[in-house]
């Protein structure tokens, strides 16, 4: 193990019940990803290694470590850290990777290092993982799983595929170290933009009795399922705009991350009743007070972006793909 990364203790925790390592892994000469590695409580020598990603893009894997399934957690609305009786490291060695560069405590040295896409993120993650094995070679023989939630539905399969590609190079003797990848796990993850998340959202709202049938019928009759799709636009944008706004007005105020759960005051992600789209919109708009009705695709945003924040266009391709 890389002893300089050993965690000797955590504030407010009496004594760590497993070995923890926290440090940095190079994803490139200028990108350094922060990781926390927590060994298994049962059989660290033989239990699988499981790499974990939170989503976003832009969210830290320490969310999972300290809130979801790490050995010590802080629950919604609580102001103390406590032992988790059901951590994922019960019978697994869990590697929490903050990715891509710029997320959480992960860092980059160049401005351009903060721009990412699915492929670049997965290449960086593979480089970081290979470096992790350099420092922890004793785990090379353990089974390896990649896992993640939310936008981790993209990160996780991409990294699994990158590891698979890497292992193919071992076969042709282009690289030496084969990783013992067995599979991957995704929880509530994005996968297929044409059918999951936004395109299925009105059906979900109807299935949870949050919108009337007439609203769903209007949405479907006007082919609004392609509402967020720049490549296959809906037949009637005006009707789709109005219907989408009506749908959003009806669920607004509920907890988007759990429709049956209360919104927690001051509770991190849960305090946001606003949708992901609102969040992205607020990023684009910055501090200005101008607000947009929900449901603009990139191409619809483009003229406004060009006028107010032209530097954004330099960062984006003009083609929707």
């Amino acid at each position, binding site marked *: 193990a890389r002893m300089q990364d050993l965690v000797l203790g955590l504030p407010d925790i009496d004594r760590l019940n497993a070995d923890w390592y926290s440090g940095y892994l190079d994803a490139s000469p200028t990108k350094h990803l922060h990781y926390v590695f927590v060994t298994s409580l049962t059989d660290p020598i033989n239990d699988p290694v499981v790499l974990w990603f939170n989503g976003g893009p832009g969210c830290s894997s320490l969310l999972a470590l300290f809130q979801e399934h790490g050995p010590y957690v802080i629950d919604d609305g609580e102001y103390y850290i406590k032992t988790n009786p059901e951590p994922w490291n019960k019978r697994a060695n869990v590697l929490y990777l903050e990715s891509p560069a710029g997320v959480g405590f992960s860092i980059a040295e160049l401005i351009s290092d903060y721009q990412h896409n699915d492929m670049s993120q997965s290449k960086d993650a593979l480089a970081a993982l290979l470096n992790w094995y350099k420092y922890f070679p004793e785990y090379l023989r353990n089974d390896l799983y990649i896992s993640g939630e939310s936008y981790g539905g993209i990160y996780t399969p991409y990294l699994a595929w990158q590891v698979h590609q890497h292992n193919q190079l071992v076969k042709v003797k282009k690289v030496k170290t084969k990783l013992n990848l067995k599979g991957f796990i*995704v929880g*509530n993850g994005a996968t297929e933009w044409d059918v999951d998340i936004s395109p299925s959202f009105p059906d979900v709202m109807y299935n949870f009795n949050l919108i009337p049938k007439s609203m769903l019928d209007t949405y479907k009759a006007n082919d609004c399922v392609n509402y967020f799709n720049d490549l296959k636009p809906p037949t009637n944008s005006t009707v789709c705009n109005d219907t989408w706004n009506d749908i959003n007005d009806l669920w607004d105020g509920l907890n988007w991350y759990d429709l049956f759960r209360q919104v927690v005051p001051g509770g991190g992600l849960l305090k946001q009743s606003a949708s992901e789209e609102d969040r992205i919109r607020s990023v684009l708009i910055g501090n200005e007070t101008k607000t947009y009705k929900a449901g603009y695709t990139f191409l619809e945003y483009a003229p406004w972006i060009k006028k107010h924040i032209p530097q954004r266009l330099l960062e984006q391709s003009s083609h929707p793909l």
Partner: protein
Amino acid sequence: LGDYLSDYANRADVRRALNIPDHVQPWLECNDSINGNYSYQYEGSFWIYKIMKQYGYKMLFYSGDTDGAVPTYGTRRWISMLNWPVKKQWTPWYTDDNQVSGYIISYEGLDFATIHGVGHMAPQWKRRDVTKLFTNWIHNDP
């Protein structure tokens, strides 16, 4: 009454404990600037499932079934698009108290499990159930 996780992660003693150098930026749950500069790729990750199945990798997708952000319904739609043969039909799964924890269906190469009654952060909100699902699955236990 701020978010305590951010307070905790940004404490000087916690940063020291985690070996975070002083020059590193404060910790944020989610960095909007990274999000705003991220280019989503239209193809998503659907295509990778087909490749990984071909090479015999195991895949598990679980879904908290009251999530509005990435709803179970949307996930079931792309899984049905795979058109993969069903090995074990849709059936409830249980944790130790005989309560239904969710439902599970096994396709060739992919297991899909719902976590009943919780949303996006299912591993947090049903810790015992999801940890059991996760642990059993990686160890090939029933």
